[in-house]
């Protein structure tokens, strides 16, 4: 009330002057704490629209009408916003405004193994995923949060089945040949945790540890890099966040196959050519009149693709007081697949608690329970015969046949044989067969932290990660694929769990203000258990019970297994900071693993790193443009213990035979390997040199690293002569190197009150090279479809010393044989006819055989990149995320069937018109009756460029003007998102981001056969805070 009075008084006093419009000149300079000017700072008068921008020297001039009680708001990129009251005197004023550097950035806390550190104190190569920037772009899983966001990390979505989406993550290249090259995940301190059902909304931070300095603390699990995920924890006060989106998905591409009439004509041509070749006179399955009456027929892809809904709902409660804080979230995710019969549902409850017990003891828990259920549509299979593939069979099925006949019954099988190979009706399969996969996961990690003396913390954790999963499969008797088995049903279940106890002591102390020491030491013990069971039946007496009653058919042999392994470790790390400028880190871990052979139970993994904060040296400090500069280097040795359980032991494995008048299975037991008591971890020695640079008050930040890694003692199945009865022996021999550069650049391009535009760019190269394969001259590696090559003795690729992993190995395509004369003149002893493809006889012996193969492609990209642009204008924010890879090849096995290679199925529409039909008609597409490509094996005409640039996510969001709505909301955003908006690529298949055989080992790379295709998603969502 007195305020009101005084204002009234003031107004009265001023009345005579109204109309004169007096203004005051306020001038000033904006500087940083170190005295450097802050150019571009915005100076605005509070509660008005009046503003100005500071010049290059930090100075500004501001005119204001009402000075009394006025306040200026000064903001600048990289600095904390400051409010400055205008002095009350009536004169013009000159202000000197000192802005504090924003805590964000250099003082950001980065989670490293067994501790945290300020980003400015880091000595190793650690990248943080900008989780906060992603809040408005919905992602389904953690791997997706990382894709394209961090230099040196390549994320590949191998296939896109809802719930079964498989990502592979390579941090600084592929280190291993037979063991996993996937990084170690640490969730809330629990190493080796499963991240497949983490809700992205629950994730507070993701830090990627890349070099040995950072990962050596994880010893024998550090070689492939470490991804540390921290979930949200409670904060004081109370808030509720609601996050929801819904939308639809649609296939982004489809194969243009022949329609019924085209396929009918094609079969007539094919039969005529075959008759000519084989000197037969078999009539075509359809007459020309029949074909002419066919029309378009069935587009089978349209029969299995659909517009599929997707939605997600998360609610998080957050709150507490100084002594007790909680974070509780619940989420439900429901996605239908773009292929009929596929869907995925997931529910998660996440609960974190932090509790103070007195002033010295803190206890808490991180926990999550989730259940997910996936209906798998049987897509990613080899396809054909009795192993159907819904997608691929739809591509290949004859368009002449209807989905259902006139009686409404499903078309049973692809016809007409033998010209067209039999396939079951994919629509019938998708609708009638079942394949359900469920997982119940529970994770809990409790901690207690006791500050024994000031700076000395004893911390103990105990955690469990538990998975109970299973699968139920059912194929009813009515389907073609059940012809052999008369229906089948099976159930399997998996029970995996591990428990982990970690005990660490941490000591933090600064001596004499110039020596800062952080020491951590501890030991951990982790035990994994893995139990499986499964049983299947055939010959179902009824289809009514699905896979729920295994008593209704003939039981097969049940299987079960039980494995466990143990890792016991001691570790220590010393961080030493001298004058805040010279940073040293030394790390050591000793790992004892039950997996290692008796002669090699313990492995030791040391590392050291040094960083120099140049920007804190006076001679750099003077350069005003440089706001931060740090040089880092590290060297260390890490390991990979993912060599499997019991590999060093001699074992007898179970097989079977049949005996008896009425044959009965009997159990056989046979020796299955040659033991190796020396078996040990794979060892990676890595060097890293990096620079962190920030310019113009962090307007531009730059991180660059060069690394060189040499992995030796690679676990290899060293081939031995088959005369031993064993194909190979497991040995630690072989070596591979990875080296590369990686860059991360963040810029604030425009930063004013109206428009804010930031760009985050990352770019990575990696060159892989095999250095040694032990005694092997070469190793053939890389899985192939066993449908296309049923008894293949060859592989998709080769490992050769001096060449990179992922080298495709096969025959070089060189056009089409045009005339008999050309064949005769070439002198080839190969049985070819005009219209067959030419494969180069590299060794010139006129034969075409295994020795004419060479490296015909590379599955590893030359570089990968990602770029995020965020533009905010007023309440609108546009976020565009582009991501891509360049320079890799894909082995497109699909072409063996949809293009050329066998006579069996429907083909791409252009095959009917563009294939070779006589001399000069085509030099790229063989005669339709030529089977040579497929019978030859891997050929360069199916190797395609895998480079792509993808508009991965485009999001437009709008912040609602809250006070006008209601006071309940603290924040409210609505957004629309398109994922996979556009992909620029020359790849002929569904999607270039693919790998059909990712799980067998690290060496099946860039192979496409019948993967669940990537899709485009349109979403609308809201995010409310209360």
């Amino acid at each position: 009330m007195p305020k009101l009075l005084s204002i009234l008084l003031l107004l009265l006093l001023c009345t005579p002057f109204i109309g004169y419009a007096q203004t005051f000149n306020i001038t000033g300079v904006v500087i940083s704490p170190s005295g450097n000017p802050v150019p571009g700072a915005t100076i605005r008068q509070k509660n008005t629209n009046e503003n100005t921008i500071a010049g290059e020297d930090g100075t500004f001039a501001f005119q204001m009408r009402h000075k009394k009680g006025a306040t200026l708001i000064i903001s600048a990129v990289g600095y904390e916003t400051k409010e400055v009251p205008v002095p009350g005197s009536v004169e013009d004023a000159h202000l000197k405004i000192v802005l504090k550097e924003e805590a964000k950035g250099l003082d950001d806390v980065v989670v490293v193994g067994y501790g945290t550190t300020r980003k400015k104190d880091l000595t190793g190569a650690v990248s943080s995923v900008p989780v906060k920037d992603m809040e408005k772009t919905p992602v389904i899983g953690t791997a997706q949060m990382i894709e394209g966001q961090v230099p040196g990390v390549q994320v590949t979505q191998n296939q896109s089945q809802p719930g079964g989406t498989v990502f592979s993550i390579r941090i600084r290249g592929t280190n291993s040949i037979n063991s996993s090259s996937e990084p170690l995940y640490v969730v809330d301190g629990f190493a080796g945790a499963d991240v497949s059902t983490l809700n992205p909304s629950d994730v507070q931070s993701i830090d990627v540890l890349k070099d040995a300095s950072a990962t050596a603390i994880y010893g024998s699990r550090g070689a492939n890099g470490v991804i540390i995920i921290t979930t949200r924890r409670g904060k004081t006060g109370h808030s509720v966040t609601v996050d929801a989106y819904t939308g639809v998905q649609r296939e982004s591409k489809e194969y243009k196959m022949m329609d019924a009439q085209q396929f009918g004509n094609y079969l007539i041509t094919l039969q005529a050519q075959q008759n000519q070749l084989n000197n037969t006179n078999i009539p075509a399955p359809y007459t020309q009149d029949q074909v002419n009456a066919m029309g378009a027929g069935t587009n089978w892809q349209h029969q299995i693709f659909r517009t599929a809904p997707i939605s997600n709902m998360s609610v998080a409660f957050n709150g507490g007081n100084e002594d007790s804080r909680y974070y509780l979230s619940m989420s439900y995710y429901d996605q239908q697949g773009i292929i009929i019969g596929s869907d995925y549902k997931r529910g998660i409850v996440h609960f974190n608690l932090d509790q103070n017990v007195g002033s010295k003891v803190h206890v808490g828990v991180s926990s999550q329970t989730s259940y997910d259920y996936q209906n798998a549509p049987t897509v990613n299979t080899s396809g054909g015969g009795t192993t159907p593939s819904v997608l691929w069979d739809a591509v290949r099925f004859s368009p002449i046949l209807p989905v259902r006949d006139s009686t409404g019954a499903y078309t049973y099988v692809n016809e007409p044989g033998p010209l067209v190979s039999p396939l079951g009706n994919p629509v019938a399969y998708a609708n009638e067969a079942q394949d359900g996969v469920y997982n119940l996961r529970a994770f809990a990690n409790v901690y207690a932290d006791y500050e024994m003396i000031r700076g000395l913390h004893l911390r103990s954790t105990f955690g469990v990660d538990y998975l109970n999963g299973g699968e139920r499969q059912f194929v009813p008797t009515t389907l073609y694929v059940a012809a052999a088995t008369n229906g089948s049903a099976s159930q399997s279940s998996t029970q995996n769990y591990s428990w982990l106890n970690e005990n660490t002591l941490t000591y933090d102390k600064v001596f004499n203000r110039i020596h800062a020491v952080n020491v951590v030491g501890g030991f951990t013990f982790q035990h994994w258990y893995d139990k499986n069971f499964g049983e299947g039946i055939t010959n179902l007496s009824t289809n009514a019970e699905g896979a729920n009653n295994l008593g209704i058919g003939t039981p097969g042999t049940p299987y079960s297994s039980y494995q466990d392994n143990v890792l016991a470790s001691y570790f220590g790390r010393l961080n030493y900071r001298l004058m805040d400028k010279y940073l040293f880190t030394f790390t050591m871990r000793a790992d004892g693993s039950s997996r290692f052979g008796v002669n090699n139970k313990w492995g030791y993994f040391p590392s050291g790193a040094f960083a120099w904060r140049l920007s804190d040296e006076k001679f750099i400090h003077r350069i005003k443009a440089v706001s931060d500069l740090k040089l880092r280097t590290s060297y260390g040795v890490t390991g990979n213990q993912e060599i499997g359980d019991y590999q060093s032991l001699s074992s007898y494995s179970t097989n079977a035979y049949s005996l008896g008048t009425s044959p009965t299975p009997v159990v056989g037991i046979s020796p299955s390997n040659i033991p190796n008591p020396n078996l040990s971890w794979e060892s990676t020695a890595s060097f890293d040199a990096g620079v962190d640079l920030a310019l113009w008050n962090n307007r531009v930040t730059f991180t660059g690293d060069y690394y060189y890694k040499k992995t030796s003692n690679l676990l290899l199945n060293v081939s031995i002569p088959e005369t031993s009865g064993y194909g190979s022996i497991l040995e630690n021999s072989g070596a591979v190197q990875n080296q590369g550069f990686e860059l991360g650049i963040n810029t604030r391009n425009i930063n004013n009150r109206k428009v804010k535009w930031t760009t985050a760019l990352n770019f990575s190269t990696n060159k892989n090279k095999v250095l040694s394969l032990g005694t092997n001259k070469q190793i053939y590696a890389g899985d192939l479809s066993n449908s296309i090559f049923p008894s293949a003795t060859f592989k998709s690729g080769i490992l050769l010393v001096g060449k990179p992993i992922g080298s495709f190995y096969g025959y070089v395509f060189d056009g089409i044989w045009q005339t008999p004369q050309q064949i005769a003149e070439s002198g080839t002893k190969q049985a070819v006819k005009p219209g067959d493809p030419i494969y180069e006889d590299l060794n010139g012996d006129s034969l075409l055989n295994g020795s004419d193969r060479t490296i015909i492609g590379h599955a590893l990209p030359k570089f990968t990149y990602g770029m995020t642009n965020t533009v905010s204008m007023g309440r609108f924010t546009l976020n565009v995320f582009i991501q891509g890879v360049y320079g890799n090849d894909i082995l497109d096995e699909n072409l063996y069937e949809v293009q050329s290679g066998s006579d069996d199925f429907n083909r791409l529409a252009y095959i009917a018109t563009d294939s070779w039909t006589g001399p000069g008609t085509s030099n790229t597409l063989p005669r339709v009756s030529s089977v040579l490509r497929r019978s030859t094996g891997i050929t360069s005409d199916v190797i395609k460029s895998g480079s792509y640039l993808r508009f991965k996510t485009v999001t437009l969001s709008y912040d609602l003007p809250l006070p006008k709505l209601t006071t309940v909301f603290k924040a409210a955003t609505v957004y629309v998102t398109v994922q996979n908006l556009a992909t620029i690529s020359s790849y002929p298949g569904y999607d270039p981001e693919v790998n059909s055989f990712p799980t067998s080992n690290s060496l099946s790379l860039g192979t496409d056969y019948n993967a669940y295709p990537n899709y485009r998603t349109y979403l609308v969502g809201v995010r409310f805070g209360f």
Partner: protein
Amino acid sequence: MTKFIHLSGICVLLCGFSCTKQLTEVPHSFLTPSNFYKTAADATSALNGVFSPLQAQTYYQRTVYIIAEPMDCWYPNPISGDRGDLYAGTYTATNGEISNWWVNSYKLIKNANDVITYVPGISMDTTQRNNIVGNARFLRGMAYFDLVRSFGDVPLVLTPDSDSTSLFPKRTPTAQVYQQILADLQYAEANCFHTAQITSTNIGMISSEAASSMMARVYLQRSSTAVADPADNQNALTECNKVISYSTANPAVLSLVTNYASIFNVSTKNGPECIFSIQFGAAPNAVNLTNRMFDPTALPVYGGYGSLIALTSYYNSFDPADTIRRNEAVGTVSGGFHWISKYFDPGVKPGASGRTNWIVLRYADVLLMQSEALNNINPSDPTKFNGINLVRARAGLLNELLDFTNTPASSDFVNALVNERGWELGVEGQRRWDLIRFKKYQQVKAAQGYTIDNNHLLLPLPQTELDLNPNLVQNPGY
């Protein structure tokens, strides 16, 4: 601080105690040498493990006839790739089926060596134990016989892997391999149960008669090679006669069945004609895809792969009166082609793998071998007609029996045997070896337009094996 030292000291000690023990791996769901070969049941399981590889597609479920049968009965469709090369005689060292043949033979040998080495140490009934070892030695002998007639000199591995065995063996001369085969079979003959002693639950195991029959086969094959022993034919005859006299005494378990078709009928398999067969059955037994390999694709009856198609010339070669065997061998007609029908299993759904056994030895073969041995020993011995005529009579050719009038010369008799074996034993895994033994292989292939040089009478060693083992030398001509 003291507290801290105490605490950490305790922690370190605790872990130190537990770790050494915890780091020892304890297998839960498989066996190791420390807990195997203890009981009679272990011996039985180990022997089953020797039989087990025989059921593989890449061995006696498919590869056996891809290697031995693309001669004059059927051809692969298309005539290209591994199968086409084996048909046209253009096989090379990279042929996948040849590699399968090599790899699985040695896999079986590895399992057999384990049994032969370790089972004798088990304390159990001696007769049973010797029977088990005899079974394993039969199978090892059979595998080496397959190898030696395929590749010639082959590495002879007779013990399980140990520090003292070389992983890189040299090729052992053919003569020595044959000696080992015969030693194994002699042991089997002496120690395996006689046919009648094999209990109904053990049908499928090796009998003493199987060993005798296999020995006859081995002697006959060796007699045609450069390492022939002068007594080979006499020994073959002796072994055949052992089996024949056992048959005379035990016709219920070993004899020429009257109904030829019943040999291949699933419901009457393992009948008295069968001496040794690889066992298949309906699930949960291993099923046999041989029917699908030979069946046409046409539905609703067949639903096979249509991969291997009968030669019209084979169909036409049958005596018009020989309808029983012709119908059984090439009775199927579909899409204008004849198809091999011995393995058709009408009891399973179209497109399903069948339950038929793969017959390795049967009594008709013994009779034919007896005739062959007799002719080799003394072409003028009239008893040489007995065996072959029994077989012909059973096929309904009572009016077309052989004698010196219609088959005067020894070469005529050989031709008659070649043909008879083709009709009687066609597509039973004998043809390549028969044709090579009778020196007819090149002639048969020449008639089909394929030139086979002498080098191709032996298969090439797999290239992968040569690459891995510097002590191996490839056969000439490859």
